[in-house]
């Protein structure tokens, strides 16, 4: 049965698609293949989620080498959820990317873009699917290397420097991670994460394990742009092509959060070492700093993409805040926000791409009164912004509800206040957009513009619609996240 091989097909299909696209050398065919692969990935991911929900954890032995000797792909509630998220975003973005890439990239680079897109997708899905710590590193680098290229494709020359800086930071992060994994391998003699968790509880010498924990934490936090390790993110998001920003903002950092979750709860969770360290407190402080400082910085940006990039740093703070509570509700909040924020930011960056399509760039000084000429796009951004604020009826509200609940459950009411106060900072930067877009008179150049193309608007609005739908009926996402949280916590208790 082919459905047995879904775990590997999930990763291998886009991985194979990438070189095939290079061979095709034709932009249109490349787009078609990348889009097809993305949608097939989505179908496989949904099927996997279905299988996991029905039959529990799926273990897939690559090349039929049984784990822990061979590489194991291990799909449980947590990464099945993530696979769906990543492939969903990829599917939507791939449809969107055609018009956007046509406008932003020279024709001869189109097929390279789609090759890198497929490769990046393969990397991200691989990180999510694999149960092997070293294999995870390889996929981490596959996704990272391809994303450096994708960012460097941006029109602005600053994209090159942004990509270079991301490359340096990202490589340091990945190397830190692999040092941590190396130490763990030395102590346990295994690279299989489930096996590692099992053996770690028997390790007597704790110092190398603590060092491993520290290395992995720093390495992954670089990748997920936890404050203050976020410095690469604003430039990378601001200068990358629109489709890339939408894709990476919605998936790359989220996948890194997953890796953090996997190591904290599944690998280190069962051993008492993790409980002995104040990881929760450290995450808490950094998350709060991210929420306030990054939101404040966002308010003062003149480039809208950069503004939302800083907002991403702040929103990642919410996710890690949820994790820092180390409780079922907190984890649920973190995972739900991971999903919700991916939808919101994906939609927002796609809509900004619609502006970029017509304007070339998206500074506040360029878009005065743009709501008159591109009302559909502008209104979509307002809705997405409302979700960032956490207005009820949007996904942001659901996240905020569970975060506040988790804070109150932990007995720290001041954190609850901090959460809502920081979301008020979002009001400021979102409303800055509203005022510029709606209250200014469009200048002569702007007034001639038309609404963005339908093939960009429809995917973007699909995501916005999802933001509203999952904000009104969060049953699916919340129960999915709650199950994932329960799965993670099983390792701990």
């Amino acid at each position, binding site marked *: 049965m082919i459905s047995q091989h879904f775990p590997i097909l999930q990763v291998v299909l886009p991985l194979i698609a990438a070189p095939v696209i290079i061979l095709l050398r034709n932009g249109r065919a490349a787009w078609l293949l990348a889009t097809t692969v993305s949608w097939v990935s989505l179908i496989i991911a949904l099927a996997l989620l279905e299988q996991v929900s029905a039959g529990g954890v799926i273990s897939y032995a690559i090349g039929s080498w049984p784990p822990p000797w061979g590489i194991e792909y291990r799909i449980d509630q947590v990464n099945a959820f993530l696979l769906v998220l990543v492939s969903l975003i990829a599917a939507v973005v791939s449809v969107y990317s055609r018009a956007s890439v046509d406008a932003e990239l020279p024709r001869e680079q189109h097929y390279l873009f789609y090759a890198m897109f497929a490769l990046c997708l393969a990397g991200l899905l691989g990180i999510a699917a694999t149960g092997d710590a070293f294999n995870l590193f390889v996929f981490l680098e596959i996704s990272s290397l391809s994303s*450096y290229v994708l960012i460097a494709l941006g029109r602005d020359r600053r994209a090159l420097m942004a990509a270079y800086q991301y*490359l340096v930071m990202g490589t340091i992060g990945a*190397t830190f991670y*692999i040092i941590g994994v*190396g130490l763990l391998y030395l102590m346990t003699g295994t690279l299989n994460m489930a096996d590692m968790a099992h053996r770690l509880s028997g390790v007597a010498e704790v110092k190398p394990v603590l060092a491993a924990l520290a290395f992995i934490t720093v390495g992954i936090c670089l990748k997920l742009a936890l404050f203050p390790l976020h410095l690469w993110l604003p430039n990378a998001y601001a200068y990358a092509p629109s489709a890339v920003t939408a894709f990476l903002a919605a998936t790359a950092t989220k996948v890194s959060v997953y890796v953090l979750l996997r190591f904290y709860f599944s690998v280190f969770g069962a051993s008492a070492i993790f409980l002995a360290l104040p990881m929760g407190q450290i995450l808490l402080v950094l998350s709060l700093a991210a929420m306030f400082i990054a939101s404040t910085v966002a308010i003062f940006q*003149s480039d809208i993409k950069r503004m939302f990039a800083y907002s991403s740093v702040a929103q990642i703070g919410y996710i890690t805040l949820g994790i820092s509570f180390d409780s079922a509700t907190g984890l649920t909040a973190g995972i739900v926000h991971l999903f919700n924020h991916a939808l919101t930011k994906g939609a927002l960056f796609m809509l900004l791409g619609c502006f970029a399509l017509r304007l070339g760039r998206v500074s506040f000084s*360029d878009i005065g009164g743009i709501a008159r000429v591109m009302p559909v796009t502008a209104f979509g951004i307002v809705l997405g912004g409302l979700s960032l604020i956490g207005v009820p009826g949007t996904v942001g509200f659901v996240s905020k509800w569970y975060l506040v609940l988790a804070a109150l459950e932990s007995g720290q009411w001041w954190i609850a206040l901090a959460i809502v106060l920081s979301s008020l900072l979002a009001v400021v930067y979102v409303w800055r957009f509203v005022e510029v877009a709606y209250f200014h008179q469009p200048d002569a150049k702007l007034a001639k513009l038309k609404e963005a193309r339908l093939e960009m608007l429809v995917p973007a609005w699909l995501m916005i619609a999802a933001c509203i739908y999952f904000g009104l009926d969060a049953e699916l996402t919340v129960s999915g996240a709650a199950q994932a949280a329960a799965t993670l916590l099983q390792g701990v208790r």
Partner: protein
Amino acid sequence: MTIAGHIAGYFTYWATIFVAMAGLYIVIARGNLIKKLVGLGIFQTSVYLLYVAPGKLIGGTAPIVAPEFQVYSNPLPHVLILTAIVVGVATLALGLALVVRIREAYGSIEEDEILDQDEPPVSPDTASRQA
């Protein structure tokens, strides 16, 4: 154990740490983009050492089961590091390619000179006029 014994006993680890720190230092302290990449390469190399060294047993051979050999080295780290080397090469190649593009765009590979060309951030009005 004495300090000297410590250093001798964990010689490979001290070497690893030294190489790693040297690499990181270059990445941070040097403004030349190529030199940064060299530093990054050195930093990654430390990982190869970290993995490979403990796998080697003095007197051990490749794990081929034969009656005359009793002590085997662990081959797995070597295999892993082959992969890591490939990743490192790819990173370096990509980094160098980016530097080439950066030099085409800016005419320089010194970080501060490049940042100076884009800073102070172009004020919105002049930017829109340029565009």
